[in-house]
């Protein structure tokens, strides 16, 4: 798939509603990344509000936001390497779909974490496949026919050509990631756990970057090594403070562990889950309304203290 960059070769600041309406279409393959940190929850909720259907969702750690999107009827296929509610329990909707096709089946492509990483690496580089030293002897290739082997054209340590498993590239129609900050063109800076976000963005045809804040160009340019996603790979910049809740944004707010634990109970009961979606997703106009509804006292409980890095000196020519 060829990348179809916007004319300017950089992102445009827009609302979440506009970004989802412009780039997330029914039947699309959508990657949502963020390895337990910076999970793009607010984007998932907007996809639910806009009633998208028949999506293929690609996400290493399919967690609460994926369970919610499945429950809302947005997802027909899931590509993932971990389908659990972090270490806090189960995803009720996902389990009902896979275990009993209740209320509808869910197609599931199962990988391991590095298998998913390699799919993004191949996708980002437009390679036909990516090799990895996993899966030999696993039952996974028996249920996922995209896990295949090739024989290396080069001799291995024992002089013989070796067989190795490969995974195919993934090129999502759109990748959505959350980050701490970006400039107005989409030069995106993230820190803490950086996961596979840059690879997922480069693998995609279109990319939406959701940020806690847009900062002045000078802020980004004072520390260019922290820009993990350059503007040329970004199509939309969405400003959405606290958009990663219940996950966290390093240095901005902490993880809502109580909600992770609560989700196992909420999602276990389909009626309670639907009621939760009615109140917190369909019942809020946008993420700002969701944030307001939670209330300042709630957010004070997730506040974090300061732990500044020592500035580095990039130097300048005299």
């Amino acid at each position, binding site marked *: 798939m060829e990348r179809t960059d916007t004319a300017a070769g950089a992102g445009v600041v827009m609302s979440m509603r506009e970004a989802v309406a412009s780039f997330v279409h029914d039947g699309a393959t959508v990657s949502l990344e963020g390895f*337990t940190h910076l999970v793009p929850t607010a984007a998932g909720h907007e996809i639910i509000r806009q009633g998208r259907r028949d999506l293929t969702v690609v996400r290493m750690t399919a967690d609460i936001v994926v369970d919610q999107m499945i429950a809302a009827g947005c997802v027909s296929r899931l590509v993932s390497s971990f389908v659990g509610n972090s270490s806090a329990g189960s995803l009720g909707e996902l389990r009902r779909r896979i275990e009993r096709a209740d209320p509808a089946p869910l197609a599931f492509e*199962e990988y391991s974490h590095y298998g998913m990483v390699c799919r993004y690496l191949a996708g980002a580089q437009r390679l036909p496949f990516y090799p990895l030293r996993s899966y030999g002897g696993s039952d996974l290739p028996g249920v996922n026919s995209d896990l295949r082997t090739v024989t290396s054209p080069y001799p291995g340590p024992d002089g013989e050509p070796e067989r190795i498993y490969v995974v195919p590239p993934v090129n999502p129609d759109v990748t959505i990631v959350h980050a701490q900050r970006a400039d107005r063109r989409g030069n995106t800076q993230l820190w803490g756990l950086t996961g596979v976000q840059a690879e997922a963005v480069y693998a995609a045809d279109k990319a939406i970057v959701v940020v806690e804040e847009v900062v002045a160009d000078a802020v980004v340019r004072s520390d260019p090594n922290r820009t993990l996603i350059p503007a040329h790979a970004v199509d939309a910049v969405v400003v959405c403070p606290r958009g990663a809740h219940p996950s966290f944004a390093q240095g901005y707010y902490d993880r809502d562990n109580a909600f992770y634990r609560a989700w196992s109970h909420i999602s276990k009961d389909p009626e309670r889950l639907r009621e939760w979606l009615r109140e917190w997703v369909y019942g809020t106009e946008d993420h700002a309304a969701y944030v307001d509804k939670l209330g300042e006292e709630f957010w004070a409980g997730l506040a974090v203290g300061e732990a500044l890095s020592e500035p580095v000196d990039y130097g300048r020519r005299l």
Partner: protein
Amino acid sequence: MTTTPPDTGTTAPGTSVTSSELLSVVASRELAARRAVFAGIGLPTLATELARLTVAPEIEVVYESGVCGAHPSHLPETIADAVLISGAEAVLSMPALFGYVLQGGHIDVGFLGAAQIDRWGNLNTSVIGDWERPEVRLPGSGGAVEVMAGSREVFVVMRRHNPRSFTEFLDFCTTPGPDRALAEGIRPRGAGVTRVITELGVLAREGVGDQLRLVATHPGVTVDQVRAATGWELAVTDRVATVPPPTAAELRLLREDVDPGRVYLR
């Protein structure tokens, strides 16, 4: 389960030891002289932190989230807890963590858990029942396939030791040991599972071609009890040792320094 070891004089008198404490202490001792340890959250966190204070002061804990050399201010609640990042020695991207650190061969011991294990140390974390329409859909591999394929050896901590978990035939092999890889003509790197620590004792395995055998039981546990709790015909070493009960010093460190809030010591 609560195990009360006999009063041998080495355990704090009148102190009952919980299953979490017992497993953490035994796992920590197995980490003596090991350096780079890949650990998840829960019992492995307790074992690695206790090992740092006792038998392995040079230990470097690597988390699946990409954190290397964490120095957390509080006991982490998840592998991605913000306290693991602030003050850590390094935080790596997923391609670097899985590609360079694990696949590149930098991990001495990887900790894994499982719903089912067989005699060769193959693991199931995907499903109970049939994969297409399972009785229970479990979370799946995460990075377990890579931890097994890339680590020099793997320790498994299992809270429950019963025939359903210690099974002759896995419902599904998510994470294969090296024997299964070799049978398919794929060259494995590490030894696979070398230790399984349970509420009943310790099973050990040397590496390729070897199967798990019972090497030690906890005080008061008989070999027959372990055989009955294991779903295959369990190999037993010639002289089965008795696991020395947790010492007063180990328990004090675990309860007062490692997990004073009893996050995992349930």
